[in-house]
């Protein structure tokens, strides 16, 4: 399982890369590998205000549909439209292919997210139940 050390993670298996007041968000390797072949991505709406944990999109694979949650509160300032025509990019490289850029409302919200080591342990527990 690829879990880059320089990112933050959520229990819903999203990753966050913070750059100043903005952050790129995407889905983790755990998420893409469990979903299997991804066939459709419904992207968030641009310029909308979202709260942390709010549903902002949908990812459909050959096996299931999963809700995409916004890990942090803020405004959606960019979306990766390439994913609309090539959803499989999320399987190919889920960290290079971000889904959206969020302008943060409150940087202190980042403290609730997991660092790579904690997320790695979280994934292990999710897999084994121990």
């Amino acid at each position: 399982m690829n879990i880059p050390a320089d990112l933050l993670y959520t229990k819903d298996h999203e990753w966050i890369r913070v750059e100043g007041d903005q952050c790129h968000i995407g889905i983790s390797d755990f998420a893409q590998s469990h979903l299997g072949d991804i066939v459709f991505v419904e992207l968030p709406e641009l310029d909308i205000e979202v709260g942390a944990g709010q549903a902002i999109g949908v990812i459909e694979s050959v096996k299931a549909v999963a809700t995409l949650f916004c890990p942090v509160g803020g405004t959606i300032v960019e979306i990766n439209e390439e994913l609309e025509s090539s959803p499989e990019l999320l399987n190919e490289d889920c960290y290079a292919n971000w889904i959206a850029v969020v302008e943060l409302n409150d940087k202190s919200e980042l403290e609730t997210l997991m660092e790579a080591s904690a997320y790695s342990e979280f994934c292990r527990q999710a897999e084994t139940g121990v």
Partner: protein
Amino acid sequence: MITIINPSTDPCFNMAVEEYLIKELDSPEDIFMLWQNRPTVVVGRNQNTIEEINPAFIEQQGITVVRRLSGGGAVYHDQGNLNFTFVVNNSRDFANFEKFTLPVVDTLARLGVKAEYSGRNDITIQGRKFSGNAQYKHRHRLLHHGTILFDSDIEAMVQALNPSKAKITSKGIKSVRSRVTNISEHLPGSLSVAEFKRVLAEEILGPDYGQDRPLSPTELKRVQQLCCRKHASWDWAYGSSPPFNLRRTAAFSWGNIDIRLDIKRGMISACRIYGDYFARGDIRELEYHLVGTLYRQTEVRSCLEAISLQEYLPQMGYDEMIGLLFV
């Protein structure tokens, strides 16, 4: 495992029950529900509804069209079809279709019918599909549901799911046609769908059989809300389709016409009309008026009536135009 008793056959209500069970009911126990719909087409979460249905047949037969939370292709339900839903807390069951379909296979084995799970989320008898399955994950909870064709009207199914040949392009999920069969055709003896339902429930629930409850008045109220606000709405069943483009051409005695529409979130977002007819008004004005209108017959008709279609297309009647835009 707790069984939810849900005697409703209203598809919008039933879709709302599923949404309530996975998103709002905080139950430490797993949930099971067997339910049925009156004649309905259920499209997948990311399908373009009008690419999947035959609107003329659906209107004539009074078939309801709803969208489900899970993915995949469009299916037809009627009261010869039985639906089963599991909502479990263990997200490790994610993508494990065999676990949820095995009880159906086992039940049929008990009844003397050999069925098997096929790789593509289906259960088949002699290679013909009678059960389609899909999953929807919401946080740590997982919903698995499936259809079971017991003695459905296959002829109606084929007609309802036979879309027009209009040129529509979208990134939405396309349905895959399968050869289908009803379980009743394969049973050695005769069995009603109600009897089959009981045998299936016994097999799935084992010692938990009989641990059931109806929805409480508070729950029913919440489900009704979800039903009215979302599942019974045009916005959800049609308007939540992925963006699509529609191109329609036709030859009339007065000339040829070529119309192209882009539809996003159920609304006409771009429109071009070409043709070799004579018109008083500038056709760009008509295009301009159509943009921003919901792609829905009643809305488009009132838009055309408000600006007088004859200004731009002198020989074209409203019904002709509507017939062209909605096939």
